[in-house]
């Protein structure tokens, strides 16, 4: 059962309790506890190897692709422990993921976006057409590809492919969207366009934004967490954190660009 939100307090979308992620003997994240609130953009910053990507993998239980990965602790989505969801696929269908390097599946642009609806049983061409156009439009890609929906998705440019993967994630109609350093292979102009898209999407879903770019977190995130070599150093309102009000020396140093 999901508890109704208390008056005035934003509801938690994801609750993380004492989460530890291990690869063999090495801990990628140790004893992290925090919550991600509904309809916020939650930024996660930190240098490489801080456990950011590992955390995203735990959220949609993609740990099977990493043989050594083990987790302890609890992650609750909408109050439900994700380890108890028997239908792993149903969990993943609610969660959209955008990877650092765009993965245009070797299908046409249309089929890339229509794949997820098809997998969940949408068969009629008219319905699919509507979904494809809506998702591509919202990912700011429709105008560029509407005349070549039949060409291979993997032939698009890097920036277009990344927007294609965002459209594909949106086609799942997710209530949680995970972005893992989406701008690594994207030019600055496209990055800004995608950032605008994300700001609009906040009304409909909860977004977790893992980024190496501190400034990107500052622009987008409502609240930000700082991960450092497997430790959750701090979570707080982005403005407070970036306003130099952090109590932690390391956070201030990283956000100011003194290391990392």
């Amino acid at each position, binding site marked *: 059962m999901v508890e109704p939100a208390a008056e005035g307090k934003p509801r938690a979308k994801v609750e993380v309790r004492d989460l530890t992620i291990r690869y063999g003997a090495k801990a990628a994240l140790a004893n992290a506890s925090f919550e991600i609130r509904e309809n916020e953009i939650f930024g996660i910053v930190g240098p490489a190897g801080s456990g950011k990507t590992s955390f995203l993998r735990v959220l949609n239980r993609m740990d099977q692709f990493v043989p050594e990965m083990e987790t302890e602790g609890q992650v609750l989505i909408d109050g439900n422990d994700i380890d108890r969801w028997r239908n792993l696929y149903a969990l993943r*269908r*609610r969660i959209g993921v955008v990877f650092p390097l765009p993965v245009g599946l070797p299908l046409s642009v249309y089929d890339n976006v229509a794949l997820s609806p098809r*997998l969940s049983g949408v068969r009629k061409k008219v319905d699919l057409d509507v979904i494809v156009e809506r998702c591509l439009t919202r990912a700011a890609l429709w105008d560029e590809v509407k005349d070549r929906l039949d060409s291979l998705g993997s032939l698009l440019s890097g920036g277009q492919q990344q927007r294609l993967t965002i459209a594909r994630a949106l086609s799942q109609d997710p209530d949680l969207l995970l972005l893992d350093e989406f701008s690594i292979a994207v030019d600055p102009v496209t990055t800004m366009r995608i950032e605008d898209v994300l700001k609009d999407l906040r009304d409909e879903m909860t977004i977790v934004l893992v980024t190496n770019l501190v400034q990107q977190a500052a622009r987008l995130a409502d609240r930000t967490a700082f991960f450092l070599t497997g430790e959750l150093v701090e979570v707080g309102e982005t403005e407070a954190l970036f306003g130099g009000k952090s109590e932690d020396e390391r956070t201030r140093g990283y956000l100011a660009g003194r290391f990392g």
Partner: protein
Amino acid sequence: MSSRDPGQAAALDRRDLAWYVDKLAQILVFIGGISGIILILGIFVFIGSEGLPFIVSKLNIGEFFTSPLWRPTSEANPTYGILALMAGTASVTGLAMVVAVPFSLGAAIYIAEFARGRTREVLKVLVEMLAAIPSVVWGFIGLSIMNPVIIKLFNVPVGLNVLNAGFILGLMAAPIMTTIAEDALKAVPEGYREAAEAMGATRWQVVRNVVLPAAKSGLVAAVLLGVGRGFGETMAVLMASGHSINLPTSPFDSVRALTATIAAELGETAVGSDHYRVLFTLGILLFLVTFVINLTADLVVRGIGKK
């Protein structure tokens, strides 16, 4: 231009041991590479020179391809019709593919996409071991195991027939096809699978919607190479097919294959006789067909690279 230091110039000009070893290695490798080409050309010239004069001067091409009568040893009126032989080869190969394609694709998908860890390694080794079984052993299985089984099961007088040979040939071709098909599936980037699974696709949905379409040309090539294998196989087919000239009308008819005919008859013919030469003509035909099949498979595989 002269060097300021004569000693250094001499050192630069001296051929040391490494220089000679390098030259020697180059020559050896060159011989190795070129000999393959020479051998192939040699075989082609040999078969051609033994068969071509006969094709040009004596062979009735129309009869050759359309007559089912293969009577090369008739004293009065020898006929060289290969229709029945081609039908024999085609029916056995066709049945073999019906057996081998589902088997090998299923095995390849299981090994590449579903099996994990030890299971997978063990299976891969086993499949490769299956591919190494000599064809005469398969023929032996056809002769001594399949034959009585077919007689009992279907209540037919002879168990050496299209069914037997096709089945044996299918089992024979399956391991190679499995290995090639598995390679094609493994060549599909892991990122595709991960992206599709992250969307909530089940393993089977990933295989069906993403992996199979991406590996399509490699899989087609695997099947084509299997066909080529079946077409050229001799010993197992000779032993399991019954080796009697027939236009097959049911899987229980005995047939004779092109390859088996050459193997069985060439030793019995006088060198230079018409019979001898017509067998070489069969050789040319087989050579051409396998060549075309392999070439097609090769072109299909290259098709992947172009995308």
